[in-house]
């Protein structure tokens, strides 16, 4: 392998292994060596695809996925300005606004979904946790999102999802954005009752459903 191939392969492997410092070093090296930033990003997203597969096959569990997602996020933050500067567009550049519903601070699952979606090439705008519905609406408008994704672990928070679906209609954006839900308290049946376009039980589901909605 050439030095460039070796660096990108090492970057990919360090993300899979969850070694954030070493992945960060490889990302720095890729920038210092002026690698095409899209190629660096591809190595990183390929790594998260592998992590997603390992998670789906129950070979990776929460600690492994979180460390990989952390490594991905740190390296991604490093190349993000360069990506914007170069105007680099990946094949898939659909925009997703994501967050945990107001009143709910459980966001481990959402963080995994964010990493997986970024790994799959989506442009993800993560609003965090305990997010009011109005903030989702504002962000969808601001970036002209293709998908808005809400997560809730607590049973009480799923009422926020119902409220969001209604608010999105009232605000005139519901027909312009696909709406998906997930999290411990959401179900496929509930998604249907509030007219959501998709439901995901797992992080992998979120990617598959999102890809299906924008394809």
């Amino acid at each position, binding site marked *: 392998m050439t030095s460039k191939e070796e660096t990108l392969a090492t970057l990919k492997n360090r993300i899979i292994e*969850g070694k954030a410092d070493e992945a960060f070093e490889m990302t720095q090296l890729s920038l210092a060596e002026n690698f095409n930033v899209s190629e660096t990003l591809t190595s990183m997203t390929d790594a998260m695809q592998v992590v997603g597969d390992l998670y789906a096959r*129950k070979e990776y*569990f*929460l*600690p*492994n996925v*979180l*460390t990989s997602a*952390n490594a991905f996020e740190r390296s991604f933050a490093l190349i993000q300005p360069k990506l914007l500067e170069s105007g680099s567009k990946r094949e898939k550049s659909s925009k997703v606004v994501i967050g945990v519903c*107001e*009143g*709910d*601070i*459980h966001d*481990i699952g959402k*963080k995994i979904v964010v990493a997986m979606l970024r790994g799959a090439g989506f442009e993800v705008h993560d609003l965090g946790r305990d997010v009011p519905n109005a903030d989702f609406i504002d962000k969808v408008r601001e970036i002209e999102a293709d998908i808005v994704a809400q997560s809730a672990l*607590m*049973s*009480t*928070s799923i*009422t926020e999802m119902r409220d969001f679906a209604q608010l999105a209609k009232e605000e005139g954006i519901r027909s312009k954005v696909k709406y998906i839900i997930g999290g*411990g*308290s959401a*179900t496929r049946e509930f998604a249907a009752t509030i007219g959501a376009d998709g439901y995901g039980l797992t992080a992998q589901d979120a990617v598959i459903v999102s890809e299906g909605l924008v394809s």
Partner: protein
Amino acid sequence: MQEMTKLERVNAVMECREPDKVPVYPYILTHGVYAMGWKLPDITTETSMDAKKCAECTLKTLELYDYDMVIGSYQDLYFGVTELGGKIKIPTKFGSVVSMKEPPVKDANDWERVQKLLPYDPRKSGRATALLDSYKIVSQRVGKTTPVIPCWWPGPTAAMCMLRGPEMLSMDMAMDKSFAHELIKAGNEFAIDFLRAQYESGANSVCHTGEIYGVELLSPEQCHEFVVPYVKELSRTIYKEFGQKTWLHTHGDYKTEGGQAILKEYVEEANIAGFHPDEKHPPEWLKEHVKDKYKIPVAGIMHGPGPLLNGPLSTIEDVTRNIVTKAGQGGGLMMAPSCEVPPDTPVENFQKWVEWTHQYGTYPMK
């Protein structure tokens, strides 16, 4: 069969004998607050709680639902956080639960500081003292006939909730195992002492410990390393000091090969004497693979965020009858939700669930 007291009923189940009827353990943490028409700030602040109100809402749920095994106070998962320098959030919205805004241990420097505050004694300060006072009130009122159980989470979950937060502790397990063990050990020491204090305050029955990680979030190998040893220490200490068995609530699929291996360790190594999994476990599986195999009682699971919360009543009745019929033969069955009963569970759903469990679960079973 002659009607038993609730204490006799639960004791029969814990010994895998037939009680007069299948008991219900609804695992109430926050629901009682909302059943009273209160909101959380009515009962707790970040630093103190109202012990009388904790007891009042607990006793109110017993009156409303007539279930069989009671946790002696309002509880959430974040006792000790404020005392160790973290921050919690007390939500005002109906149905919400207390959460952690900022863990006490964000980095190594924090850990050095927090270690100087450990062990945190729940008898001396903070919201925990009110919880213990509530146990005293509840056990005085109903303890002669009703199991008043202590409830706290073993090392990994205790460390997650009191010290480090879920993400960072999970990453520690992968990247810095010795640090993870230090935190979990501290969590377990607090858990054992808090349970001890609850017994000292009037708890009189089986010890509930609930493990959030389980094989849901950890691999069997990670469970073997980070969960089983601490559950073992907890259950053995409680048995040694109070002669009480430990009832384990856990998450994840224990039907898998790896899950079954951990289940075997829980029973044979960690001495758990009651298995309360989540909704992934049908009653017939629980009967065959846990109750009959290991001769320990099981919880038949009503999914909280499913039928219990959303109904309809006909589904609650069907699910209840199915659980009792499939897993109740011969005794050793407790009816329970898949996790904490949802805080906003409708009163009628809850009442009917208990009523139908007692009705269909009357022994001798047909």
